[in-house]
């Protein structure tokens, strides 16, 4: 609405003459261009770590420890000369810097060959080859991803993550819709107080309930299984209920009343009237909860402690980080693996995310 208002204001600016209009337009374009450039700068600093992650994840071990190496994934260039791999150096000559392969090392004079033109034969170069810098070629190590995948047992991590996130999301969304429907469509005594209590649970630190719950789960044999990470979500949670309730309040009651006159009961109304209307909010809640479950770290950390075969991605890659801390390139490769699925889903469903946050300002 607001956007439209500003747009009409901008359009109604009546130009005084053709030249002044042109000038105004030019000035506007320049201002937009430079401000957008500024925005791009801020954005690229903000997202810089992503570029770091991708480039590091493609480097080989040797390059990571070599501070003089280039920022991009590279390998020392070599050239095959008479059946042997010889290193390529940046050689300063009268015609500028040349990339030549070092064939014969000498103290003061060395023999090189031009990889672009090996038929020309050996080139004698006066100077110490040790002072030369090696030439680098772009050499992304794609196999880092398969190494990281294999050593972290990523297939297993992914399977476990889905086995937790999918049922917990189904439970959370289904129960939250039902509870939100109850709070938004029916009058009953103590409703306001109950809703305040529901919202109040948001500020509750998890420690206040954790220890007895943990002791209980241990007694009934749930510790070391997925159950503590799934079952509690079937009882609705404050964020989801709040978001859905806000949305349901906006759906006109005339629709349910019409259905009621046609003889539909409350459950029928929920399924055939409310649900189709609330689709955007339900999608948003589904996505939020799915990502929350996907990212949850503390729950799996305590309930699956020591059960390596049940670890989801979050705990699995933390474990991987602890073991492979000497191989930073693999750490970045596993970070890529961990975020590629959430990011892909995000880009396909981004309008639901953005709306979901805006509807109520709710985000887990």
């Amino acid at each position, binding site marked *: 609405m*607001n956007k439209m208002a500003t747009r009409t*204001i901008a359009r109604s600016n009546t130009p005084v003459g053709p030249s002044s209009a042109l000038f105004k337009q030019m000035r506007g374009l320049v*201002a937009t261009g430079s401000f*957008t450039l500024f*925005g791009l700068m801020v*954005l690229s600093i*903000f*997202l810089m*770590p*992503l570029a*770091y992650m991708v480039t590091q994840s493609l480097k080989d071990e040797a390059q990571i*420890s070599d*501070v003089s190496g280039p920022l991009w994934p590279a390998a020392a260039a070599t050239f095959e000369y008479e059946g042997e791999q010889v290193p390529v150096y940046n050689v300063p000559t009268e015609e500028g810097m040349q990339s030549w392969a070092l064939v014969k090392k000498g103290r003061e004079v060395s023999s090189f060959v031009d990889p672009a033109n090996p038929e020309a034969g050996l080139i004698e170069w006066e100077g110490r080859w040790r002072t030369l810098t090696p030439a680098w070629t772009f050499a992304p190590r794609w196999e880092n991803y398969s190494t990281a995948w294999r050593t972290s047992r990523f297939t297993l991590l992914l399977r476990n993550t889905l086995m937790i996130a999918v049922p917990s999301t189904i439970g959370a969304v289904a*129960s939250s819709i039902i509870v939100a*429907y*109850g709070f938004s*469509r*029916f*009058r*009953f005594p103590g409703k306001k107080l109950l809703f305040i209590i529901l919202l109040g*649970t*948001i*500020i509750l*630190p*998890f*420690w*206040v*309930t*954790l*220890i*007895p*719950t*943990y002791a*209980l789960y241990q007694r009934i044999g749930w510790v070391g299984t997925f159950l503590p990470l799934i079952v509690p979500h079937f*009882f*609705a949670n404050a964020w989801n209920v709040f978001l859905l309730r806000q949305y349901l309040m906006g759906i006109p009651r*005339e629709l349910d*009343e019409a259905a009621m006159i046609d003889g539909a009961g*409350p459950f029928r109304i929920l399924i055939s009237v409310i649900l189709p209307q609330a689709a955007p909010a339900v999608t948003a809640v589904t996505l939020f909860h799915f990502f929350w479950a*996907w990212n949850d*770290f503390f729950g799996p950390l305590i309930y699956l402690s020591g059960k390596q075969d049940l670890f989801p*991605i979050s705990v699995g*890659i*933390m474990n991987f*980080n*602890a073991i492979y801390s000497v191989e*930073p390139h693999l*750490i*970045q490769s*596993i*970070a890529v693996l*961990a*975020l590629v699925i*959430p990011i892909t889903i995000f880009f396909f469903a*981004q309008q639901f*995310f*953005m709306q979901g*946050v*805006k509807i109520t*300002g709710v985000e887990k």
Partner: protein
Amino acid sequence: MAAINPQSTVLSNVVPKKSSMLARRESGWGLVFIAPWIIGFLLFTLIPMAASLVLSFTNYELLNPEEMSFIGLSNYARMARDPMVGHSLWITVKFGLLAVPITIALTLGIALLVNHPRLFGKRIFRTLFYMPSIIPVVAVTLIWGGVLNGQSGWLNRMLEVVGINGPNWILSETWVYPALMFMGFWGIGGGMLIMLAGLQGVPTELYDAAKVDGAGPLRRFWNITLPMISPVIFYILVTSLIGLSQYFTQPYVMTNGTGDPNNATMFFNINLYKEAFRFQEMGYASAQGWLMFSIVIVTTIVLFWSARYWVYYAGGDE
């Protein structure tokens, strides 16, 4: 709404007897629908809360529950003497005092940026600024752990270009807090969108009127924008406080729970986790949980009390 649908008014006005029966049936259905939450609340919140309060007065240990006995306020007295509890609480507060205001200011700055009329491609900018918020926190920590590496990390390489010799972020007792704050910057997406909605809700007439009165952009920001979006800032402040009281994953993953360097990252929840799950002292841990809960409640009350002095509600009392 009632005017559009005369049916409901007719029902409630003309047949009062039947309507009270309907009301009873309605409240019955309402309770049926909210039942899942009520059951969950009792099972997973209220009963455990009461139990943990009781446990906080015992020496309950997970491994030998039979030997549990009431020890009165001993856990609370021990907490007051325990230097690690004091230390972990203090660094949590210290980190909050540093990170919360700066992060909120950055969130506002980014929201202003992506709301600016001169920005081309606002939608793409908003999406990209939001995107890091959905990256798993463990992955975020690993990525930033690399970026903040003293030698090979890009942050120090960038600082070098401008002639600054960057610190050894994660290994420094001082710089580890800004380092953790930077990691948190990747979670501002939600706050940014809420601020954005707040900014778009400011009536344009206010700005137009101020312009006519000769107010410059800074004045307009200070006297119109800030007061108008103060409810949003308040909301983000409260959620930041809750987030701080649950702060765990980033420092835990970064240091594998060691609290390095020299316990500088031994945040309250990490210390508590150690107490509960490594030393199995569940009674003592429950007492600490209640300490955190009391602090959160008091701080929330203080925040809500302070709101009347700086949060502006356009709609009067709502």
